[in-house]
């Protein structure tokens, strides 16, 4: 095999490891979550469906509950519901306990 004397000489460089771009840990996507008050919409079914009444609180207003919702793509997606009287009662007793602790 003949070698062209005028061919530029190239010095074979040892192969260098290819530099990979530094991988950044992916950031989790987060969605806002909130607790909102909504009407339950529960009804009585009366006498073969002739008439329906909404279940109401003792003050006569339609029954409501707490709903835990996540806002995904601009839409409130219900995750779970909670009885409003039960949570209100827990909040009242926690408030009373906190006030007792700070005053005691």
């Amino acid at each position: 095999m003949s070698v062209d004397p005028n061919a530029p000489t190239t010095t074979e460089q040892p192969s260098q490891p290819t530099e990979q771009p530094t991988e950044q840990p992916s950031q989790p996507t987060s969605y806002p979550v909130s607790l909102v008050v909504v009407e339950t919409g529960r009804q009585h079914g009366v006498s073969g469906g002739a008439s329906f009444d909404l279940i109401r609180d003792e003050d006569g207003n339609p029954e409501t509950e707490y709903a835990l919702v996540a806002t995904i793509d601009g839409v409130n997606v219900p995750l779970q519901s909670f009885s409003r009287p039960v949570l209100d009662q827990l909040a009242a007793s926690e408030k009373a306990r906190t006030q007792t602790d700070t005053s005691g």
Partner: protein
Amino acid sequence: MSGVVTCINAFKQSLTGSSFEALAACTKDSLTVISTANPSVPAAWMEELFASNHAHKMEAEVFSQRFGDNQNGYRAEVQFRSGTTQQSILGRTVDIPVWSADTLNVQVNGTASDNANVMMQLYYPNIPGAGQRLATAAYVEPIIQGGIAGNSRVLGIEVTVTPGTTGNYGTAVALNANDDRLQADYDYAVIGYSTDTPVLCIGISGPDTGFYRVPCPAMWDQRWTADWFLQQSRWRNSARVPIINANNKATTFLDGVDAVNTGATKVTLFMAQLPNKFQGGQ
């Protein structure tokens, strides 16, 4: 003999906590056993004991000089599970005698600021003139299984009841307030019930109960409640199934009581129509 199933409910709001403290009887209830004028024979038996706390576990006890001992008597642990805290703390077939005119003490040892309730079911074998109508499971079950003239007549009648928000009885609601389907003039056997929320005690009272409050403890496990009165009768081989005439639907009332503010609670009574008028003693 005029047997009566009834209950005593006791409550306390905002416990002091950390030591036993007394509960008070709910409105028109009394912790004093009805006097039968015979101190040597049991006036009644405590057949059921249920308890609930709205936020934490606790201990509950019932005692008197003639019930257990006059210190802690019958003492039990009450678990707490959010939403399903109502529970039995007396064995299913354990019936403890209570004595004429004895005053029971009901106490709990819980967490400060908690609300606590205890329900006791009592059976008096004879209150003269009480007129409570009770049948046995052995009488009712064949009627259910046989049907009436080629029809099955077991209904679920819905009543929405709101237990009181202060541990006491809530507003009473008529049996036919929300669902009026009972056939006039017929007797119905109340075999059990279901609820959409656990409640310590739903009470039924009216002309057919002698105006005594028949307790319906509504736990989360509705295998207990769906045939509650049939089971009560089987366990004791005695009449425990309330009989209610349809003509009394507007004067038969349901109310509720619990340490937890359950809000409006749907109760469905399972009622089996009887083909013939119930004469009692069956």
